[in-house]
């Protein structure tokens, strides 16, 4: 398959003036700023083929969003090259705009006070879309995404999950071949996240669309993407198929048990007990060796359990583990 | 009393902490003053036939004084509106000290800091402009400007208390503010009004006690004017305080009876 995106040693440095405190500091700072440079993206290279669905994951501040902004033409890199559909994004921003759809999870491109339908109509004109083709595409998306009743509701009265469905629909209305999603599931509850994931997967498969998304939620990757790029402190630490990564690193859950007894001991394989307060046991579960149900069944069988929580390990930890594994440290 | 003093101190410290806002306000004051004194300078230099006579030295000093008082009065009505709207007032009502007194004291502290800052800015401009102001006029102005500010604050308090009955205090605020312009003589002394009835009405109004009476002492200082200003101001402070207390009581009664 041909590459839709090629990126070579792309870097982005931000320079910012460190703030001094107090009135005097503000004045001296205005004349002699104390500049600091941070490398948000430090020489990343990768290729993405047509139809691939790729997740860029990493902790906050790892450089995910900066990379996405450079690929969508918003931001100019400090050095390095990138091509999207053969275009240099930051130089041929407008030509590229017609071929990509972008969602920034923390910002809205819809008018809050107006029905989503009005914003969609405006986007048709912004992307110079033909009316009939547009109507057909909107109809399909409305059906796929179950937006029927939402369409005539002011966006400000929607739940976050409903709004995000409309945001994604808005980014697909001009039929882009490539979709960039920056933290599309941020702040959503589990059901809303699932709805978004299902939609992206289904839609992208159906249309053969290329999808690049960023997230710090490991489950987004598993369900939506074929390939994962893990980025930390501006560098790529892992770039491999999701299956492989899952087997290696995403096979862990964290089970927290509140109990009457100060400690609980379970005799099962694949369990690591993490340090915690008395009456709370935090277990790291390797799901390749033992299923979470088994762990919980065993704990309940022991009696005296008051509360159970099951979570994914924090992203920072997953990344640290990947990082340690790949650098061999 | 001790709690009111503490609230006043908090208000003053709060105003000082927001020093960029104070600087911005001072700049706005100076620019407005530059424009208004240019206007009155032009009018005074022309002396057209049939035009009203202006006091010697023009109106720059007068307008400097009215704007000084006007820009020093904090928007207490917005605080009151917020507290009434948000229900924060109900928690305050549980406390032993009177909420309204504390809020006014706090705003008073804020106002004193503003008066001092803008006053210094005005004195600086005065020194630079080469104009002179009568020393006794400045002293009288300083004393009655504070009272004038209190009257303004009480008027805004009444505006804020309208929040017990209407959703937004903005309409009441706009009306009061425009009355300050018109009857208070913000841009020109009310003594210039050609209609005698309108002039007398203005002079007796609380708006003139707030702006005109303190400021007129810079262009026509006299013991008689000072005494009259103080008497009017004391009377209006008493009347407005009683009105505020009565409206407050009625508002709280409504709040306790119906909620908001």
């Amino acid at each position, binding site marked *: 398959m041909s590459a839709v995106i090629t990126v070579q040693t792309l870097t982005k440095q*931000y*320079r*910012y003036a460190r703030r001094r405190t107090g009135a005097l500091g503000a004045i001296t700072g205005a004349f002699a700023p104390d500049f600091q440079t941070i490398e*948000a993206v430090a020489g990343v290279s990768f290729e993405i083929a047509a139809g691939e669905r790729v997740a860029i994951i990493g902790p906050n501040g790892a450089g995910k969003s*900066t990379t996405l*902004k450079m690929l*969508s*033409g*918003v*931001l*100019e890199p400090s050095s390095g090259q990138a091509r999207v559909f053969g275009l240099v994004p*930051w130089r041929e921003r*407008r030509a590229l*705009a*017609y071929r990509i759809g*972008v969602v*920034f999870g*923390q*910002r809205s*491109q819809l*008018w809050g*006070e*107006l029905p989503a339908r*009005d*914003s969609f*109509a*405006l986007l048709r*004109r*912004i*992307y*110079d879309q033909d009316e009939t083709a547009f109507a057909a595409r909107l109809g399909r998306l409305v059906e796929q995404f179950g937006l029927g009743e939402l369409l005539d509701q002011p966006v400000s009265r929607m739940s976050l999950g409903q709004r995000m469905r409309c945001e994604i629909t808005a980014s697909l209305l001009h039929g882009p071949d490539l979709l*960039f999603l920056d933290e599309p599931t941020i702040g959503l509850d589990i059901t809303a996240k699932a709805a978004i994931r299902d939609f992206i997967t289904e839609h992208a498969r159906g249309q053969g669309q290329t999808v690049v998304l960023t997230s710090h939620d490991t489950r987004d990757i598993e369900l939506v993407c074929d390939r994962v790029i893990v980025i930390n402190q501006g560098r790529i630490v892992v770039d491999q198929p999701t299956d492989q990564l899952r087997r290696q690193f995403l096979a862990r859950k964290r089970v927290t048990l509140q109990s009457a007894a100060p400690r609980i001991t379970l005799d099962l394989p694949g369990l690591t007990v993490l340090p915690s307060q008395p009456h709370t046991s935090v277990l790291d579960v390797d799901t390749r060796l033992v299923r979470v149900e088994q762990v919980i069944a065993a704990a309940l069988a022991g009696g005296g359990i008051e509360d159970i929580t099951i979570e994914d390990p924090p992203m920072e930890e997953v990344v640290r583990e990947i990082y340690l594994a790949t650098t061999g440290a | 009393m001790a709690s009111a003093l503490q609230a006043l101190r908090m208000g003053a410290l709060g105003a000082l902490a927001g020093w*960029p806002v104070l600087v911005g306000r001072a*700049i*706005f004051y100076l*620019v*407005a003053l530059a*424009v208004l004194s*240019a*206007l009155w*300078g*032009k*009018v005074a230099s*022309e002396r*057209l036939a049939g*035009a*009203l006579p202006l006091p010697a030295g023009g109106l720059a000093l007068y307008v400097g004084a009215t704007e000084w008082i006007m820009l020093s009065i904090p928007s207490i009505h917005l605080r009151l509106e917020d507290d009434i709207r948000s229900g924060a007032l109900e928690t305050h009502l549980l406390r032993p000290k009177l909420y309204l007194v504390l809020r006014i004291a706090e705003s008073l502290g804020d106002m004193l800091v503003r008066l001092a800052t803008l006053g210094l800015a005005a004195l600086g401009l005065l020194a630079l402009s080469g104009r002179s102001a009568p020393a006794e006029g400045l002293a009288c102005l300083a004393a009655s400007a504070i009272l004038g500010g209190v009257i303004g604050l009480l008027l805004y308090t009444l505006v804020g208390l309208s929040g017990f009955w209407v959703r*937004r205090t*903005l*309409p009441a605020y*706009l*009306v009061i503010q*425009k009355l300050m*312009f*018109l009857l208070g003589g913000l*841009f*020109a002394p009310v003594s*210039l*009004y*050609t209609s005698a009835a309108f002039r007398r009405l203005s002079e007796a109004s609380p708006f003139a006690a707030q702006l005109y009476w303190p400021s007129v002492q810079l262009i026509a200082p006299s013991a008689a004017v000072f005494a009259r200003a103080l008497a009017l101001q004391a009377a209006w402070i008493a009347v407005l305080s009683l009105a505020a207390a009565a409206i407050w009581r009625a508002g709280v009664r409504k709040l306790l009876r119906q909620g908001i």
Partner: protein
Amino acid sequence: MGGVLSTYPLQAAAAIRASLADRTNFLLQMGGMAVNNGFFLALWVLFFAGFRSVGGWGAADMALLLGLIMTIVGISGVAFGGYRDMAGTILSGEIDALLTQPKPVLGRLLSRDSLPSAWGDLVVGLVILVGFGRLSWVQAPLALGALACGLVVYLSAATAFASLAFWARGARSFARDLTDFLILFSSYPGSIFSGASKLVVYTLMPAGFIVLAPVRLLRAPGLGAAGVVVGAAVVYALITLAVFQLGLARYRRGLTPTSG
């Protein structure tokens, strides 16, 4: 360019519909501003009743000037309302999404908001222009042209102020203050400005080109006066486009201190 012209009216219409969503708030803000402007006009009526004229400016000239500036601020707020808090929009990082779309960013920014209070400016401005500006109907085309040019200069200056946000984080309130000063300078008879203040109103605070030159053109039409009005509009628009593009380029290099 064609792209802008075809989509701008749609975007502005959407903004206006959004501003109408809360009917009560809309009417309150519009009415409040209309009353506010009415009072302002009343003050000037009183002023001219007392002083006849200022440096050759009579009541009708002042009405023409007030009508022009109110109408300009009104049209700006209704159809280009995004200008008012453009600095805030830039600083919040909201233009990222606009940059991923094919239409020019500046048009999107100007059309993202419509201010209810601006209708109050627009209505009162037009009433003053037609009722008190002492213009004949023959002059209507010329008046529209002068108004359009003043509008371009006003929006250009306000946009240039907002563009400061590309360079400095504190630009949000600063840009707003500068725009308020621009309105203030545009609300007084031009004859009061001389020396340094005249230099300012024909450069950094172009009240001179927003209202003074258009008033001169309408009172004494001529090619020279028309040239000044049109030329100023072209020059200010070009300067602003250059400043905005420079700022946007800076933003796209990641040098703007956004909070996003």
